[in-house]
């Protein structure tokens, strides 16, 4: 075996993604040269993907404490207490690079990975949300990617049996060569039954469970830490293939095994597979571990120790059982027709000892593997930013016809209905989904209680591009506001940070600023970050000579895109908010401040092809008050609809209120007639975007009560009109500025994205 292994040299280490300094450090930690297998362990565990080398110092800034927090960052997923003895476990992860290489399997295995993160904690997955970013859907290559990604998510989630209840899809040219596939999963568990990924108890057996190991995705973790270039093709590892059926068996078997009480610790084999589990689990437990690789169930012949440790075959778990209860565990897995094989033991030392057919192939202190170097590189704002921000959108011409502008916006792929995607997803299995995709947040009941949870994901790359700190704070606010509009009190945040190469100062600056913005918003809204994921190196290296307009280094990074997932709780599931107008004759109010801007707006992009300007101001205290006012109104049953003002501004919010209920209302939209305040240019008033704003509708009979509640809440708000009719009509300065049939708006909205996919 050893004879065929490459000789360990600095060059080899470099080839595996380690730097010369890192290689020296390994030699120092070991007091000798590493073996080939050991070098493989280090290269995987010290990759950006596993070790967060460039981001760790920044992530420590995120607030992670709250009274209801049960598990913060550091485990497979975070958990919060939702009351009545229940907890929700949740996390978001990216699978951007694999999805670009093989969209169907890449997205499918992304779903598989996040599901495992949830059920290793002992929670049954109850909801999936997918947050996707692509280039222009009119482009054939992009269309192929969208098709592959959506059907991959659909296949895996549906077959496994977890409903996909929400998400978003947005489009911008910067994602054309590097789409984003972020998937969030939420699981439900008794608060006192959460399982952790710790190897404890010297002498306890270590079991390998699930699918057999093949040569899939070896070096996936290192690949996720590299930019796409011409050589990506050559470096392509064997693509991982998803097996949702086995995953479903694994879910049932793991939950059943945990219920016996014989499971001490468990972790899913994700990035860097066995290598990651066998070092992280003992590191968390303050123990060591010994494993014999020849015991690992194998799908292919002649796999080397290196390959066995680094394989990223899917649907596998490493489980530490209670000594003496091995047969109990084996029986559970046998019932579900799964391999469960003892491959080692927890040891008292602090070393990972790996043997292959009895021969020691690696012997490393676990701490050396998990304590990767961290970097605090210097960073600073890009030179081009000031110029981008300086453009004043109001120097661009006004639209001739505001009604037409609204119809165009409603038909822009980013705003248009995403039903084409979510009708391919099972949205209801589990019979908990009270609010299906199509409202600000999904709502799921918690059976056996009166409670429900609300979930939403959000993140605007355009806003973060123009102002990383405020844009990221706004993403937190918007996701939380969506949850509040549904009546949910936000309890926790998970984030997925999608950025370019952190080795470039301006990208690292975007990242650092975005983290700061998320931290500020979370503190103000009193929600902890329970976990997340960082995806760097989302770049396409262009053909030599070509440079993007805003970057001199020859590469094009995606728009910096933190995606924020928020989970909140409703005490009373029967008091929930949805975004669409319910009936004619109800009063419409606009809650929140007037501060909006066309900078970075969907309007500026769709009608003027520009990504420029400054963002609206964000007052986190006002945001907090608006959200709590909305929750109070929804919770008291005072409002019949609540809809967050997001992309497209007030006009689009009203239009969505008019058309998005058609499905729930039995096929008909509900028009409205409103009057907007003069004072700004009309396009800014109608289409400007800004935080902290919500449109609600109120039955006339509840008007006084509602007004009293608003007065108590001390937030800016006003009545702006009434629902009803078959048209959307806007008055400004004494004249009608928009008068469009709801039908037309609905048609534009329904076909805006779908027509590209037909």
């Amino acid at each position: 075996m050893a004879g065929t292994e490459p000789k360990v040299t600095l060059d080899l280490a470099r080839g595996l993604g380690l730097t010369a300094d890192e290689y020296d450090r390994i030699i120092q930690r070991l007091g000798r040269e590493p073996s080939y297998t050991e070098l493989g362990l280090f290269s995987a565990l010290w990759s950006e993907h596993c070790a967060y080398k460039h981001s760790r110092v920044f992530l420590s800034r995120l607030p992670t404490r709250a009274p209801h927090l049960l598990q913060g960052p550091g485990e497979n997923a975070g958990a919060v207490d939702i009351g009545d003895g229940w907890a929700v476990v949740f996390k978001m992860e990216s699978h951007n690079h694999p999805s670009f290489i093989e969209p169907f399997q890449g997205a499918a295995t992304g779903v598989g990975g996040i599901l495992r993160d949830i059920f290793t904690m002992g929670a049954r997955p109850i909801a999936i949300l997918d947050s996707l970013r692509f280039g222009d859907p009119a482009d054939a290559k992009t269309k192929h990617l969208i098709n592959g990604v959506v059907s991959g998510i659909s296949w895996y989630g549906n077959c496994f049996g977890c409903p996909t209840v929400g998400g978003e899809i947005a489009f911008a040219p910067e994602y054309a060569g590097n789409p984003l596939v972020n998937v969030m999963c939420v699981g439900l568990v008794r608060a006192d039954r959460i399982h952790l990924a710790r190897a404890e108890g010297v002498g306890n057996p270590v079991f390998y469970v699930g699918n057999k190991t093949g040569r899939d995705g070896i070096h996936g973790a290192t690949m996720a830490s590299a930019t796409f270039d011409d050589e990506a093709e050559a470096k392509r590892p064997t693509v991982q293939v998803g097996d949702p059926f086995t995953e479903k068996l694994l879910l049932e078997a793991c939950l059943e095994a945990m219920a016996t009480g014989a499971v001490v610790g468990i972790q899913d084999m994700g990035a860097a597979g066995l290598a990651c589990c066998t070092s992280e689990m003992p590191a968390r437990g303050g123990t060591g571990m010994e494993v014999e690789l020849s015991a690992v169930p194998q799908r292919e012949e002649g796999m080397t120790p290196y390959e066995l440790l680094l394989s990223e075959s899917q649907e596998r778990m490493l489980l530490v059982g209670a000594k003496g209860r091995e047969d109990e565990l084996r029986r559970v897995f046998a019932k579900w027709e799964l391999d469960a094989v003892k491959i080692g033991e927890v040891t008292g030392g602090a070393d990972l000892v790996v043997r292959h057919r009895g021969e020691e192939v690696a012997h490393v202190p676990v701490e050396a593997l998990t304590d990767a170097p961290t970097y605090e590189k210097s960073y600073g704002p890009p030179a081009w930013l000031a110029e981008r921000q300086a453009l004043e959108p109001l120097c661009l011409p006004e639209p001739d016809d505001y009604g037409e502008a609204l119809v165009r916006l409603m038909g822009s792929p980013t705003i248009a209905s995403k039903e084409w995607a979510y009708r391919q997803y099972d949205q209801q299995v589990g019979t908990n989904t009270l609010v299906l995709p199509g409202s600000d947040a999904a709502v799921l009941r918690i059976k056996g209680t009166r409670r429900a949870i609300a979930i939403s994901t959000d993140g605007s790359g355009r806003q973060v591009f123009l102002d990383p700190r405020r844009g990221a704070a706004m993403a937190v606010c918007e996701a939380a506001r969506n949850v509040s509009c549904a009546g949910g009190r936000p309890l926790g945040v998970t984030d997925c940070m999608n950025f370019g190469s952190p080795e470039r100062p301006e990208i690292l600056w975007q990242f650092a600023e975005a983290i700061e913005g998320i931290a500020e918003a979370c503190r103000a809204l009193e929600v902890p970050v329970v976990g997340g994921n960082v995806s760097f190196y989302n770049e396409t290296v262009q053909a030599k000579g070509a440079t993007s307009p805003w970057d001199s280094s020859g590469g094009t990074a995606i728009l910096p895109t933190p995606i924020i997932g928020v989970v909140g709780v409703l005490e009373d599931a029967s008091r929930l908010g949805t975004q669409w107008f319910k009936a004619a004759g109800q009063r419409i109010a606009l809650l929140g401040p007037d501060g909006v801007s066309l900078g970075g707006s969907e309007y500026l992009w769709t009608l003027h092809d520009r990504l420029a300007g400054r963002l609206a101001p964000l007052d986190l205290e006002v945001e907090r008050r608006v959200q709590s006012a909305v929750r109070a109104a929804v919770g008291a049953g005072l409002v019949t609809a609540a809809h967050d003002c997001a992309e497209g501004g007030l006009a689009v919010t009203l239009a969505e209120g008019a058309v998005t209920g058609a499905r729930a209302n039995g096929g008909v939209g509900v028009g409205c007639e409103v009057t907007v305040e003069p004072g700004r240019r009309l396009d800014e008033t109608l289409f400007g975007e800004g935080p902290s704003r919500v449109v609600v509708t109120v039955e006339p009979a509840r008007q006084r009560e509602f007004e009293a509640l608003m007065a108590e809440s001390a937030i800016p708000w006003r009545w702006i009109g009434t629902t009803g009719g078959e048209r959307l009509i806007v008055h400004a300065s004494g004249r009608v500025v928009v008068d469009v049939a709801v039908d037309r708006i609905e048609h534009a909205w329904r076909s805006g994205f779908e027509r590209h996919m037909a």
Partner: protein
Amino acid sequence: MKLRVLIRLKPGILDVQGAAVQRALAGLGFADLRDLRVGKLIEIDVDAATPGAARQRVDEMCRKLLANTILEDYTIEAIEAERLAPR
């Protein structure tokens, strides 16, 4: 000109379908089954002057659309006597 394309997963790629079918057959008592792999069959009728030209066209179709060469290998065979099943 009638040709047949056989598409198989590349060696090393997990054959999720094949593994499940194999388990199912074993469960039905086929203890003599050693291995089973599932692939795709595509039968094509193409207008071409020579068998060589037909094969070349089908090869192009495979590369452009029919096979996902990240995951799959393919082989092209001529169908001699047999007729394509009528639609």
